[in-house]
């Protein structure tokens, strides 16, 4: 306990906590849409494209910095994500298929690039994140992305829900379904990139799936997926950063572990749908 209190007085640590809480909330909120889209696996594919993107950013600029890493990850994920949406619009290839093709190809390109980079060791930092080392630039990027995501999704909540539920019915009600689908995909990629610093490429999926998945075991209310997901993501992330010091594990993995534990607890003990407690119909 003394150790935690001592850590709490450190400005680094305070910054890490604030960032974890905010990214956890924003990504937890957005995880509601990921759950409703039922494409957690494609989010996982997208997260893997961020690594070759970072590699490309380093390769092109010759240095590793916050900005070229973020921009590289953003570029690669947007290219692959929106590319897969565009390819699948022809109905010839499903989006899952086109995404698998594009993300493995870009991942392979990233692996091919790795030996040519001088900063290979530092890449580990981007693979798994390091929230204690979070800098001012990271915080601003994360805050800006989180604010945009929360604002846009709340303003367009109705057309987004209509589209996610049934695109044809939404279009018949005058929703520009194509715009909404690209928008959701764009925001998804932004959210992934915003969590790079906290949990890294690979684990960023955890923040964008687990919170709302946990809430979905506890309630049937659609809106609760978003706000509940935000609370679970935010509080879970802060708790994980606090616990990571005393437990001697890195904060990034700690965040995803804590969220995973919360999910399992909900799965077992949810009053409505829990395996042990719940009264399943």
């Amino acid at each position: 306990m003394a150790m935690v209190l001592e850590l709490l007085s450190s400005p680094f640590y305070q910054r890490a906590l604030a960032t974890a809480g905010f990214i956890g909330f924003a990504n937890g909120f957005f995880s509601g849409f990921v759950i409703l889209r039922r494409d957690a696996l494609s989010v996982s594919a997208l997260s893997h494209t961020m690594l070759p993107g970072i590699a490309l950013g380093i390769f092109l600029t010759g240095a590793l910095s916050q900005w070229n890493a973020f921009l590289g990850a953003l570029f690669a994920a947007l290219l692959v994500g929106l590319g897969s949406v565009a390819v699948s619009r022809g109905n010839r290839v499903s989006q899952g298929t086109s995404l698998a093709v594009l993300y493995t190809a870009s991942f392979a390109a990233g692996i091919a690039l790795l030996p040519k980079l001088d900063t290979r060791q530092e890449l580990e930092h981007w693979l798994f994140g390091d929230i204690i080392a979070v800098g001012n630039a990271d915080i601003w990027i994360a805050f800006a992305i989180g604010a945009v995501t929360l604002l846009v999704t709340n303003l367009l909540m109705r057309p987004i829900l209509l589209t996610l539920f049934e695109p044809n019915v939404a279009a018949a009600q005058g929703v520009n379904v194509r715009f909404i689908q690209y928008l959701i995909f764009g925001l998804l990629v932004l959210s992934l990139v915003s969590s790079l610093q906290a949990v890294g490429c690979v684990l960023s999926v955890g923040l964008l799936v687990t919170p709302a998945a946990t809430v979905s075991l506890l309630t049937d209310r659609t809106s609760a997926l978003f706000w509940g997901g935000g609370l679970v993501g935010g509080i879970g992330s802060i708790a994980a950063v606090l616990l990571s010091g005393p437990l001697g594990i890195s904060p990034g993995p700690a965040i995803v572990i804590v969220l995973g534990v919360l999910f399992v607890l909900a799965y077992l003990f949810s009053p409505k749908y829990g395996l042990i407690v719940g009264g399943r119909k």
Partner: protein
Amino acid sequence: MICWNSPFPMSKIHHDCCAHHGHHHELVISGLTVNYRQVLALEDVSLATSCGNRVALIGPNGAGKSTLLKAIAGLVPRTRGTILWRGTTVRKWSREFAYLPQREEVDWSFPITVRGLVEMGRYPQTGWWRKFSAVDKAAVDHALSALALDDLQHRQIRELSGGQQQRAFLARSIAQEAHVLLLDEPFTGLDRNASQLLGDLLNRLAQEGRLIIASHHDLNTVPFLFDEALVLATRPLAFGPVAEILSDDLITKTFHAAPPLPASV
């Protein structure tokens, strides 16, 4: 329909529209053609009908029944042709048209209650931000009770039976104050009782003044469920009252020598 915008309470609005206004609202489709990329999906479809009718779209698989429904609803781009509703050209979509998808196309595990589903029908009226007013709430209440879903309104949609799911979407279109209901294979997969109930409901909704257009694959039940029929095989082969359309040789021609199959419902 003029009455939809009237200040009367909801319960008074839903009288027999046609009797109410003394005239019929016409839907006139002329020269409608749809291409999916290079493939001609629908060619030169023309028909004129009016509210109060139940129109069946019949024809073999791939004849363009779903495409026609989607083209009217504005879900697929029209290559040529016009759609005139109540004398006004429908450019892309109309708030007075409701599209009801095939049941298997809907994600029934989506976490939403029956009431939530019906409330979605109000979004064109409320816009993207406005809160639900007393009028919106009344419209939803009315739609739920019109389709006998009051007791089920707090259920998750995945907990509904096939017939109830169909009714939930109908309630949504009533809440939307839709005047033209476009249903894709509404009777598919329903058991005999549910089919009968749905048939009665569609009859009532038509008598209240709505225009019902539905794709349908069971020729035997067409006379009991519909007033008019359009026989499609990419091009329209015949359109008119059901009794005239269901002459044997036309059906034989359309379905390629297959006589009416035994009832599958």
